[in-house]
């Protein structure tokens, strides 16, 4: 394992220390328990928006803390959900009297830890609403499983809900909006090469020189299917067709599209995939109203990409365009 770290057990903290130093105009990092919080938190009268999860998905979530997006983020160890004490402390720190929205990705660990934290906060009189993102179409949605993983739609939900909170949506309205975003967002990812969790020291799976994994998540876990390497065009087709069929998206829909890199794939390749995606959607009469192309929700140095489509209404698009000032997303300010 070759990584620019000091020691595996220090990686998350060292990295957050760097984040704090690089963006002291935007955020602050508390160490015990560990959370990242907007500099001017709590904003009185504004509902707070919080997310969190295992580390290794940078810039998510710490890089999305700032005006117009998250009030706080709770980073766990690499690929390990944060603990209730972190989430509780962050929630209390951003509560400006209007309650706090928890945006939780659908993993057993995240669900349970956020649940325990929400109970602790509610016991202290802070109103908490939780919305679970479960947008990964690679996973069958069934009553008999843990449901779908939360992946790319999380980024879009954080941006849109962050803007809505800035506009002083109250907590129930914010929760309803977040649910609407989650219901209308779908994603799927693939990998050309695995990643290595620092503390584990070995790649999470092995791939032959001419194989790729379709339907991976963001934790270096194997996907649903191992297939021969395909062209960017075929990859874009396979991913987008699965995504489109699921909602389903229809002719005339407007979407916010994200072509996301898993961390180890050059931007050049992501733009190639975006080119293919844009052609495909045009052919189906689906309009890309807004888009992101880059590394937004990663899996350490995994090579690969994911496609997220969010069927967006005017409200979502208008909120999308609102100013945002975070290390990972910035415009309008």
């Amino acid at each position, binding site marked *: 394992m070759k990584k620019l770290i000091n020691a595996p057990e220090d990686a998350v903290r060292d990295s957050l220390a760097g984040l704090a130093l690089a963006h002291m105009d935007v955020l602050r990092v508390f160490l015990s328990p560990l959370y990242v919080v907007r500099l001017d938190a709590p904003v009185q009268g504004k509902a707070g928006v919080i997310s969190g999860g295992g580390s290794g998905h940078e810039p998510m979530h710490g890089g999305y803390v700032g005006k117009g997006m998250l009030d706080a983020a709770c980073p766990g160890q690499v690929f390990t959900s944060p603990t209730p004490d972190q989430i509780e402390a962050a929630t209390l720190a951003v509560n400006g009297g209007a309650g706090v929205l928890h945006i939780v990705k659908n993993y057993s660990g995240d669900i349970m830890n956020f649940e325990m934290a929400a109970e602790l906060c509610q016991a202290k009189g802070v109103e908490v609403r939780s919305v679970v993102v479960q947008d990964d179409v690679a996973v069958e949605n069934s009553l008999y499983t843990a449901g779908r993983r939360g992946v790319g739609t999380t980024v879009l939900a954080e941006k849109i809900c962050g803007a809505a909170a800035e506009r002083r949506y109250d907590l129930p309205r914010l929760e309803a909006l977040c649910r609407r975003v989650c219901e209308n967002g779908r994603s799927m990812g693939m990998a050309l090469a695995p990643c290595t969790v620092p503390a584990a020291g070995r790649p999470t799976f092995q791939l032959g020189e001419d194989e790729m994994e379709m339907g991976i998540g963001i934790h270096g*876990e194997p996907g649903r299917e191992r297939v021969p390497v395909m062209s960017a065009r075929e990859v874009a087709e396979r991913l987008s067709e699965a995504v489109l069929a699921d909602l389903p998206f229809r002719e005339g829909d407007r979407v916010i599209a994200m072509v996301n890199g898993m961390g180890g794939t050059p931007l050049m390749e992501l733009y190639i995939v975006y080119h293919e995606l844009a052609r495909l959607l045009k052919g189906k009469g689906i309009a890309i109203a807004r888009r992101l192309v880059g590394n937004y929700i990663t899996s350490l140095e995994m090579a690969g990409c994911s496609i997220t489509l969010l069927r967006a209404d005017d409200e979502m698009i208008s909120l999308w365009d609102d100013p945002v000032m975070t290390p990972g997303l910035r415009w309008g300010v």
Partner: protein
Amino acid sequence: MAVDRQAVLAWLESLHRVYAENRDFLTELDSAIGDADHGINMDRGFSAVKAAMDADAPPGLGPVFQTVANVLIRTVGGAAGPLYGTFFLRAAAACGEQPELTPAGVVALFQAGVEGVRQRGKAEPGDKTMLDALVPAAAAMRQELNGNGSLEQILQAGAAAAEAGMLSTIPMQARKGRASYLGPRSVGHQDPGATSAWLLVRAAAAAWLGKTE
């Protein structure tokens, strides 16, 4: 024969060693059907438990388990943190004010702990989780107790049932936890949580029967 505070501390101490030794093994299992952190999580948690106990082990059994629960909840994260945390929370409650555990107390402790895990995780045996080791272990212990088995027989039955339960996860398709995302590809792999659960029960048997692991 009863389990006193010293024996409980010895169990915790041995768990620290067991999870350190099995860190890579559990992580390996988790990398096949999960996200390659289970061994790391358990090792981090029980190192912290050891540190807390070395620094200041509270008096009594209940408070010791309560501290274990708090430490695990604050340091493990992932699915295992809340689950094992809840196990020890319920264990603490089950101990109440007792200064030591009779065989019946031991069985009650495990049953309460396992029930906590089941409630927290909303899983059932057959879902390919730690419950597949824990539920049979608690049931086997209860059965030995009902048949007037000795503490030794109870603990050995628990460990054996946990091991069998752990192995039973291999052919299962996961319906809970991260492995469930793999669908049919989860079949053929031993569940990491069931494995750490077996280690937990086996370590209790070893520590409380005076054998070191």
